[in-house]
């Protein structure tokens, strides 16, 4: 392919419907840049999203986009990849979609390690339903459904993924576009299931975890001595440490993908010969004769 693509090639005619200043704009912009940088073509990208403000993102990326039901983006994306492993498959959703209603699938998608990328746009709140607490909201976070303060401990999605056997775990910040593009490029290029959690502040409902708050409470792990993304114990330490939130690639290893372990044929399943194998199919009857 000699044509050079730009982020605009992944833009849709539909304007994004997020609040002005929403962190999700940064994610959208970085994703389009990453796809262009990787030389992907829109027809070979399948983009699956869940429900919530973040789920709307699939409507804004020129591709084959699937905007399904709440919490189920990962099973859909996994199957799209199994059906056609030539596609670049990306799933995206928010902290509610991925860590609450879809939490069950998250763990299993991680351990399956299909070669797809999952972007979790984390704003620590339920934006689309007007600001309730989410699985990543801080304990004590006061909302309409938690007037006495959120009683639950926040979940650390990347640490959960690490425990489940994650092979590429990264965290970005939507206010750092260049770094985010690099993370997404690395994630998409990773041969396995890649998780990119993006701190994507909700400017309307979350008055605590704001852009300013994140700037103050984050750091890039690779800027600290001893950074070793191949070391699982080290990754767990920095993920779980009290204090500032680590950004960047926090863990990466190489392990066989789902496609490999299922022994998928080189020909994508979608291209399997359905009619030329009638004789062989007919022979299956003999086992019952």
């Amino acid at each position, binding site marked *: 392919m000699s044509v050079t693509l730009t982020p605009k090639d992944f833009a849709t005619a539909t304007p994004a419907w997020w609040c002005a200043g929403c962190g999700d704009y940064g994610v959208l912009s970085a994703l389009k840049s990453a796809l262009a940088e990787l030389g992907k073509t829109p027809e070979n990208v399948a983009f699956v999203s869940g429900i919530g403000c973040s789920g709307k993102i699939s409507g804004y990326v020129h591709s084959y986009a699937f905007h399904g039901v709440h919490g189920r983006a990962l099973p859909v994306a996994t199957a799209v990849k199994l*059906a056609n492993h030539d596609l670049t498959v990306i799933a995206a959703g928010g902290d509610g979609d991925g860590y609450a209603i879809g939490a069950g699938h998250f763990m299993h998608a991680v351990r399956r390690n299909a070669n797809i990328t999952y972007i979790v746009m984390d704003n620590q709140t339920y934006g689309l339903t007007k600001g309730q607490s989410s699985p990543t909201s801080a304990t004590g976070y006061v909302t309409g459904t938690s007037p006495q303060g959120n009683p639950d401990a926040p979940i650390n999605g990347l640490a959960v993924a690490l425990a489940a056997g994650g092979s590429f775990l990264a965290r970005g910040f939507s206010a750092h576009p260049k770094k985010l593009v690099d993370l997404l490029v690395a994630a998409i290029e990773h041969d396995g299931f890649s998780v990119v959690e993006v701190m994507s502040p909700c400017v309307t409902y979350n008055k605590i975890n704001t852009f300013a708050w994140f700037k103050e409470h984050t750091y890039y792990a690779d800027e600290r001595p001893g950074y070793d993304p191949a070391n699982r114990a080290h990754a767990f330490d920095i993920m779980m440490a009290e204090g500032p939130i680590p950004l960047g690639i926090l863990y990466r290893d190489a392990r066989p993908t789902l496609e490999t372990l299922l022994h998928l044929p080189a020909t994508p399943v979608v291209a*399997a010969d359905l009619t030329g194998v009638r004789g062989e199919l007919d022979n299956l009857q003999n086992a019952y004769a």
Partner: protein
Amino acid sequence: MVWNDVEIMFGGQAGDGSLTTGDLIAGILKRLGLEIYTYKDFPSRIRGGHTNYVIRGSEHANYGMADMVDVLVAFDLEAVSAHVDEMRPGGFVIFDNSSETVPADLRRSDVTWYDVPLAKIAKEELGLALVRNTLALGVLAKLLGMDPAVVRAAVTGVYERKGEKVVAINVAAVDAGGAYVERHYAEWPSGYGLRARPDGDRLLMMGNDAIAYGSLVAGCRFMAGYPITPATDVLEWMAKYAPRFGGVTIQAEDELAAINMTLGASFAGVRAMTATSGPGQALMTEAIGLAGVLEIPVVVVECARTGPSTGMPTKTEQSNLNHLIFSGHGEIPRVVLAPGTVEDSFYIAAQAFDIAEKYQCPVFVLTEQALCQSKATLPRLDLDRVKVEREKMQLEPVEFGAYQRFADTPDGVSPRTIPGVEGGMHLAPGSEHSPSGVITENSKNRTRMMDKRMRKMESMHDDLPRGIVHGDPNAPIAILGYGSNRGPIAESLDRLAARGTAAKFFEFRTLWPFPEDDVRAFLAGAEHIFVVENNYSGQLERLIRYVTGPLESMHPVRKYDGKPFRPIEIIGAVERFASPDERVLVRVNRT
């Protein structure tokens, strides 16, 4: 006396091998040229609890159990106490009296008793307690007059892969069983004798295997499922065979994932399916609605069992019909098909994929435990009857901007591109959308898109499997039913006719869209209408009444005790109400 219609029941504790032996007997009876139907009645646990396996062998294909049990092979007293009252007078019992005795009150005098210390002989004479079942087979074979060569060959075939020693001891067990009968019961003939007929080119297949096989032949190359009784066989079959044909099968983490995976694979262009039972079906409901609005073809096999909730997971019921037709928020085009035999399970499953692909909507294949986990003999399947048409799938590049994934068309079906096709990029959203896939809440668009999608329910009419009218189409007695009830109802017709009552039977093969015209035509002139179904509330009857309105002449015949109908229960209902005009609900549950 030759008796080529025999129902044999193996009863014992779950995990004691009676299912394996039951399968073995089914295979032997097939070799002897009989038509087979098997029914597994087992508890929802792996070890312990009463289980029984019914094998019916007959000269005519009956697709269901007989009125009564002819032969009971009872490995314990519980099997006797649970089933001795189901026995036909003149039948016989083989009872393992190694450690128990049958008390006088259970020892019916109108059946013959063969007390054989099966476990004891297996352990002490053959040196392996495990061969008790094969020993019982030897006793049975002798009492039924089966050809010993056929029995030995079948036993050899089953145990071959376990090695020569295992084959040898099992063959010895068969012989020992026969010898025991000769020694102790030479003067006590069973009254039964099977006459061998040519086997012919026939198959012995389980309903679930037929569904999976039909799916694969129809081009299904993706299955996602979550293990659940009685649907797991479909997943296991596809896991074994789909990869050999370039396909993939995946065990999902739950049914939510299974159905969403099925949608994902189909979105990517692969013919895809899942299979489940009631509890899983409930979880899949939301995504089925998504398939409807995204116009994604999916085939969902529902192997119904007793509900609600966990219900009786290994028992049969037809109480999920409402769920398949009416579940979900919002309205979508959907199809519910129901095969009535193992053979039809193959063809209906295959056809489900063509209908799903042609009309881009969910298609359910509804079956139930009494059919999907039963084995039956059938003629060799004709794969040429299965066409794989990709219909409006658009694989050539299209012009982006001009192409509309959800274009409003006369038949409601839009050209479908799949990822990889140049120019066909679009958003497939669960939100209401325009013909090009843009999310919109515009009222005019909403009406237009609802009309477009629901129009498919009309345009698919001629592609749906037609119901079958059995018996005399002018008979005054009309019976309606579907699925596993096809067997007992059809058998009832013949026997009613022999007793002077002319009756006809409409076997539904499509339950939704409801075949109103066919039902109306079938019921024209009927004096008494019997709706036979395995549920409490009359789910099928209500569908019929949408067409007919309330009718004094309609008699519900219902059963919801977890067991399939036996023909006599249907015959009894018909004979009871064919003349008096009182309308009484006939419940034929065992008490």
